[in-house]
């Protein structure tokens, strides 16, 4: 019963969702619309579970004085104070906006920008023309990179057109193949779940 009931629910909801797209039957459409509305609610609860889990992990770090435990204290203090501020004063509050703009936005954009440094370093060390395929990849990559910036046009006026051709013809052909193949694979996985052959989502093996 512990396994067969969830499988039965998955089969009924899965098949119902598929037919909901093709059939205009209020008897089917209305309950399926309701089930769709549950998803944002369930995901919202998952955010709460995630927050509690994160606080719990860091509480243990503090309790056992693990290396870097003081970082966990900062996390606790910042997380709880921002949550409290957001819940009591709302996200349009000046202090909340100040923290968002000057801590979260500043730190996350900095972290994203640091990626450029590692890209340059890894490109220098690893992007080598060791064989024909790697050489084609290197040349096409360099052309697409130059096509994305005005300096490409300044070097040679046709570079943006060449970059566009690489993206629209060979890239598109490859992407379509990958998308169609993964789409067929996705349908297969969905069918296996809906027919009850794949049960790994319940935990454990098949």
């Amino acid at each position, binding site marked *: 019963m512990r396994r067969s009931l969830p499988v039965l629910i998955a089969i009924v909801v899965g098949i119902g969702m598929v037919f909901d797209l093709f059939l205009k039957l209020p008897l089917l459409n209305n309950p399926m619309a309701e089930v769709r509305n549950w998803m944002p609610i369930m995901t919202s609860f998952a955010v709460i579970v995630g927050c509690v889990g994160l606080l719990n992990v860091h509480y243990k770090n503090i309790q056992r004085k693990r290396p870097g435990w003081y970082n966990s204290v900062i996390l606790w203090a910042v997380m709880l104070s921002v949550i409290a501020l957001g819940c009591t004063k709302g996200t349009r509050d000046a202090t909340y906006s100040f923290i968002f703009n000057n801590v979260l936005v500043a730190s996350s*954009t900095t972290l994203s920008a640091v990626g450029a440094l590692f890209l340059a370093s890894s490109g220098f060390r690893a992007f080598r023309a060791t064989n024909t395929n790697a050489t084609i990849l290197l040349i096409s990559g360099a052309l697409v990179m130059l096509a994305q910036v005005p300096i490409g046009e300044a070097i040679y006026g046709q570079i943006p057109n060449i970059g566009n051709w690489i993206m629209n013809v060979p890239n598109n052909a490859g992407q379509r193949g990958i998308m169609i193949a993964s789409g067929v694979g996705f349908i297969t996985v969905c069918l296996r779940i809906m027919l009850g052959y794949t049960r790994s989502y319940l935990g454990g093996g098949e």
Partner: protein
Amino acid sequence: MNFWEKMEKVDVRIIFVVVIIAIAIPLVKPLGLPMKVMPMSQQVYDYIEKMPNGSKVFLSFDYGTGSIPELEPAAKAFLTHFFRKGFKVYTMASTADGGMVSQMCMAGFEKLGKVYDKDFITLGYFAGGEAGIAAWSADAKKVFQRDARGTPIDQLAMMKDIKTVKDFTLGVTVNSGPGGYGTVEAWVRQVPIVYKTPFIVAPGGAMVANTIPYIQAGQIQGMIGGLRPSAEYELLLKEPGLGVAAMDAQSAAHSIMIAFILLGNAAYFALRKRPGARQ
């Protein structure tokens, strides 16, 4: 140790410093390189330009704070065009911090005189990724029962005639890519394919390659992918902004990366024949 051996063993910190200097110089002293508008940006601009004044459009801020430098120019360029055309703009976000990003962005337009619930509304964050998009598309008022300012959705004048996503003339996602939320693929699967609502996407540069097939298949109306098309869009609007300003720095960054790749390969070929070299 000869020059190429030194090059191959160069300290990573030297590379970092060279990249930082190369990017910083054009930010301090812009090069002002000319840039032509590519057909895709023109296609998107023309499509929006031909839409009737007063159309209802929604724009989803599907990116987090880390993607603001790359994607905010696109979001702002779209919004500038929408408001210039007198469109009614509905914003939302499928990422948790996207809700705040949308509010920050719209606050700028509010300062320029755009009126809440007359010109635009911010619906805020919706959870659930693709399932959330499907639920919102089918019943817009069920997913957002209040807007981001806490007003009940039925009290908003702009939401009166909105039932499903079919009530919009155009949808736009400004999207940073995969991450379990409303990705480009999720929007395409749930909105233009199911409801035939015209759709335009503005993905980050890394997502452009995956998105092109949707345009050529006619499933979406166009794409402003990455920083350069955003800059082109600003030029079409005759309102250069963040995108155009960042182009010189990006030119420097791409050039220096290509220079490092060429240098790395030169060192590789120069040292290839030495005993024990990596082939």
